[in-house]
């Protein structure tokens, strides 16, 4: 291997847990010119110290934060959807129906894929936390709730478009005609 790659290898070994032994062995190698071992090792040790601390709490918090971000993600699209809905109007046209369909379908799809959405974060949590699964219930609940809000917005939109059978006129054809109890001529 070329010397350039050795330097690269050293740096990587410092941050990786398994590479620490390698750094010792690499100390036998003549330091490059201008290399200060103390500075280098101190910074490495401080770095590795911090890393060791966060292995428990800060990594969890970070992932938690990340999960909240994911959970809140759909909320950010809501104003956009609302704007699109407003732009497309309440009339029943192909465009407004497409938009409404999208508004209705995307929360449903997202809710269906809740587990997959949080799966990468959970997986990371598993490997870091020594097999302990991180609990994202709140985030998932928030995620589902926001999507349900989106769905409700879609349904509301349906209703203002008059596509929900809520009025008496929607059931008019199902009312049986009256029977006449008398006959006259």
């Amino acid at each position: 291997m070329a010397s350039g790659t050795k330097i690269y290898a050293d740096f990587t070994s410092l941050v990786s847990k398994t590479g620490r032994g390698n750094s010792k062995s690499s100390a036998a190698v003549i330091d490059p010119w201008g290399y200060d071992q103390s500075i280098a090792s101190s910074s490495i040790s401080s770095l590795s110290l911090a890393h060791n601390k966060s292995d428990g709490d800060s990594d969890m918090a970070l992932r938690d934060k990340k999960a909240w971000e994911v959970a809140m993600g759909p909320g950010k699209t809501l104003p956009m959807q609302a704007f699109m809905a407003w732009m497309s109007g309440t009339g029943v046209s192909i465009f407004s129906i497409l938009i409404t369909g999208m508004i209705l379908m995307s929360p449903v799809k997202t809710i269906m894929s809740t587990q997959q959405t949080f799966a990468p974060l959970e997986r990371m949590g598993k490997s870091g936390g020594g097999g302990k699964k991180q609990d994202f219930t709140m985030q998932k609940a928030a995620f589902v709730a926001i999507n349900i809000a989106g769905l409700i917005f879609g349904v509301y939109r349906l209703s203002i478009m008059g596509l929900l059978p809520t009025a008496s006129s929607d059931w008019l054809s199902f009312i049986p005609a009256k029977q006449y109890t008398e006959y006259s001529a």
Partner: protein
Amino acid sequence: MLGSHSLTHAALAAVLAVSSFSMTVQGLFPDEAGRIDWYRAQIGVPKSIVAHTQEDRSTNILTITDRNVLASLNPDNGEIAWRQLFSPTERINALKVRGSLALTHSGGNETHVRVWDAQSGALAWGYSQPPSPNYQADSGAVEFLRKSQDVLAIVGDSLVRLAPNPSKPVWELALNGTASYKRLVVQDNVAFIIGDAVLSKKQPKARLHVVEVSLKTGRVKQQYDVNTERSLGSSSSVVLESKEYGGYILWRDDKNIVWNIHRLGMQEPMWDIYHAKLVQSELMPVDMLTSTLGELDADPGLIADKPRFTLTYTKDNKVKTVVVEMTHANDKLELRKVVGFRSDNAIIAGSGGATLPSSGASQTERAVVAVRTSGAVSWRVYGSNKTPTHSGELAYDAATYGPVTAASLYYVGGDPRVLIQTSGGLVAALAPGSNAPVWFRDESLTHATDMTFLELPAPASSAEHAAKATDPSVLASPVTRYVLRWVETAKSLAAWPASGFGLFGSSSDTEPGSGSQSTLEALVPTAPLTEGDHFGFRKLSIFGTSTGVVAALSTQSGARSWTRYLADNGTAVTVERVFITRRSQPLANTPSLLTVVGRNTYGNSVVVVLDALTGEILGDGGIHVLPFNHVKVFELPTTEKTTEQQLLGLATGGSEPRLAIWPATAEAAKAFCALPESVFFDLGALAGSSQLRGYRAECPTEAELDPWKESSAFLPSRSWVFDLPEGEVLLASSEYHGAQTTALLGRVLGDRSVLYKYINPHLVTLASRRAAGGIGIYFVDRVSGRLLYSAVHESASVSDKQPFLATQSENRIIYQLWQDSTPVGGSTEGAQPRSKGYVTVVAEMFESDKPDTRDESKAFSSFDLKLPHVITTAFMAPEPATALGVTRTGSQITTRDVLFGLSSGKLLSLPDQLFDPRRPKKSPTKDEQAEGLMPYMPSLPLDPKRVLSHANVVAGIAHIKSAPTHLESTSLVASYGLDLFFTRTSPSGTFDQLSPSFSKVNLVVTTLALVVGCLLGGPMVRRKLTNQAWA
């Protein structure tokens, strides 16, 4: 896999190919005017016919009819050259023709004299006489003056001489009501008017009053009575007139064999002539006592030199008629027999003076026609001797149009034509040497009183007919019938290439055309129409007429399918209603039944049951004369079990009405009593009444039903009385026709709430004339007698020009009346200035004024204490209407069109939405816009595009009826009255039909191309896939 797919495709393509040629879809397009509709101009039954020969020696037939039409007919084919329609109230009394001018006398006290150009029908000039208090009923006569264009007329209570284009008469003589003058005898310098003198206690015997008037001055020269003891028009008196010999009155005294002759203007001497001498043959006094006289010439004063008349007597039980001519010889009067013949059941008519026989202008060669009416119609034309000059026969069955009642004679290029009229209303022209009429006009339907549609069975394939004969069980299941039809279609497919792929020749409609009924159709239809079409466009429209004729016409072409003349004891039955009381199933052996209800001359109810498809009278008795007279006939919602005949109810009037049923059998009575709903009916809804009475049918115990006879009847109990307010008189009433089906029970508003419709089939609309002026409108429930709604139109009135018209459909009532500018008798103070004109009022009824409020009960009873919420609005109508109607479709999903028969001869169809009383009068709100309400416009448009009758002038529309077809979009519309006009219309467009521009060839070609593409492309794709797999 691909192979089976392509087979399926090929089969599909074949199916499409076959179906595309097996039926033609008909839609409504402007260019189809005249193809989807038919029109027949009619004139009515002639009262008087005058043949008019013009200077170029072509002849026209001029006639006045009982439908108040003056018409000119083409003598070669009977088609109308021109016609003038008089107002129904202005009866045409007389028609005279001189040269190229026709003269009519019409009206009663207010009399109109008009002179027409006989060639074009244009009005040359006219004169109207205002009414006079001294007017004597039935007086009036008119005559041209000799050697002058002037006209002498008895108008109102005056005798006037009129010069062309009169602003006022040349002179006018007031008659002071001295007699009812009906006859005018014009001589060179004087005229005689003859009338029935007014009878008094002093002089109770009938006598004729004669006034001699100077033509120049209009002064009375003399006046006197002739004591004939006979009135004008009696069968034992005639008035004779002639150019040379002056005028005479000839009469025979009652119970006397002596004939008296009086020469007009000469009081003495009066000649007495014995009967025997008169006819130059020996007669027993007994025979003379029953003899009668008849006038012979329709227009006696026209060219006649010598007066003629007929004398009919019975000798040895044989009726004989002699034609007698008056001659002067040596200053002595002589009556000479011209020709005599047996005349049992014969009609004798003269040629009139208006004909020009072949020999030229010889006036003495006036012919006489004798038409024998019993059995086959045979006729003979006599000149001046005993042997007939022409004769002929007509193959005619009196059961179709009734016996011959009148005849007249005219000439076409020297050949005689005999015009016969039957009591049913047939007019036919006969020529020598042919047993079919030269032409005929069926004028019976100008007296139509009722009409009903008969659904014809769908066309059955010949395979089905064959199966009916061999194995009827195949027909029981719709599946096997379907298979049967496909097998036949497959067979016909084999013959398809041989027929040139159906490109040449069409066999879809073989009905005779209606273009010229007079010459194209056979007098007696050869084959009745028994099959309809796939779309229900071809039905039978069955008419009943007051002349006793029941006739079935194809709704598609107007071709007559059958006609039947109904008579009781030799007189026509006045048909009032026709009902389809049984509808037969396709290929069934039980015929559809038509029950005809009418009246005989004594007023007795008459019921006749006919086979609706063939017109054959069914039952042993044929014509059932019932021992009562009905005032109302209606359908009952049940059938007799064995015959499956629908029951009819016949209610009699009087203080204790009875309800008889038809069929009058115990079984029918039991079926009636088994009805789950109570039966109510109302009486008194006739013009002039002031009270409406409601009755409820009551059933006796079952034991009393058993010996049920034609005279049996139920005794209904009176359940309510509806009195109009003091001084009000009923003008007209209207009710629902047929079952009320509705697709939607409510009106959907803009905010998607619902106003529920109030549909009450028992609702009757009454219109009354108020004592204080104006029209009162009442919506009355026929079951409970409750007043549901009332309105007053203070300034409205109805007249003959605009009678009260109303139509009811679903929850909407539309009526039309005339509105004057100021309220009659009412105070105008503070009132808005009113518009003057024809007003169409719409009333729409809802269950509540609040949306989404509905009576939730499943049953509707008139005894529930609920009143409808009525919304009304009014529109200015473009023209006076003569009839109103509404289109009907199968499920009432299609919007309706309101149909107006206009007095200008148009059949106008306006969309229902126009008549919406909820149309906003201010700028519409968002909800109103969403509801699709048009802003209110006060006047209804007379849009030429919406005139269903397009270029046809449909005169005198009195009734408009509509029937659904098998296509929901399309309904049949029929209008009748004077003219007949049938069409079909699609108020919401032909949404369930392919447009005529739809290319079925393209469809088939595309499908075939796809199949070919699949067959070719399949192997290629497979090869490519295999190659890909190896790559």
